[in-house]
């Protein structure tokens, strides 16, 4: 999947969450997303970013703009080092709070994205990836 542009940003504080929202908004606008799509991906980013800060102990996000078969997309990959999620399926159910506390954010964010994946290795960390295609 051709990655047109990518940037890495820290997600460790409340200010970082605000900044992630602004960055994702800017990229979404650049990619030509309509207002509703923009709002969806920015909100999803905010959810995961907040989880990353509050329950992951802080991590990073890789923001990438994609191009595949004349389709443009925006992908966000949040990475957190830590205990990981024991049961991903459970975590994706709304309202669930695991030991690492990734609650409403995951399930909700998944609904807002075109593609969504969570990888977690207990003791190593968690990677949440969400993509929105135009």
């Amino acid at each position, binding site marked *: 999947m051709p990655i047109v542009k990518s940037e890495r940003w820290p997600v460790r504080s409340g200010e970082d969450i605000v900044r992630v929202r602004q960055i994702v908004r800017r990229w979404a606008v650049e990619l030509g997303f309509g207002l509703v799509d923009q709002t*969806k991906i920015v909100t999803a980013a905010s*959810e995961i970013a907040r989880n990353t800060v509050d329950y992951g102990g802080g991590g990073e996000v890789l923001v990438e703009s994609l191009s595949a078969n004349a389709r443009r997309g925006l992908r966000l990959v949040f990475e957190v080092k830590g205990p990981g999620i024991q049961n991903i399926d459970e975590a994706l159910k709304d309202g669930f709070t695991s030991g690492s506390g990734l609650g409403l954010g995951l399930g909700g964010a998944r609904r807002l994205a075109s593609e969504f994946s969570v990888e977690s290795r207990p003791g190593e960390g968690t990677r949440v990836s969400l993509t929105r295609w135009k």
Partner: protein
Amino acid sequence: MERIPILKMGEFLLVTIQVDMHDRLALTLQDDLTEMIVKNRAHGVLIDISALEVVDSFIGRMLGNIASVSRVLDAATVVVGMQPAVAITLVELGLSLPGVRTALNVEKGMELLRVSLAAPNGHADRQK
């Protein structure tokens, strides 16, 4: 430190949120509002979110909290001006803002507050 201004409008309080709030600012707002409700013996709170382009579950919870705390202090809360894109996203997110009454704009919000104050239990039929 920056704070979100709270205006007094008769027996109501009006909060206009115009910045992308970070967590501390949101918590400070809740504290300030609670204080002002008591200090002014306010019976209604209007929160204008027409400038907010993103409402995530954190902000949603904050709005819910404000409504709950206000109710305990005998004040009704109405959130006004939600943007369509935000509403659509919240529906998709599965966030229904329970216990939060909404209106399209400040004018209608005040109308809703007056109606709910006129009814003895303050129970307008727009409760979600």
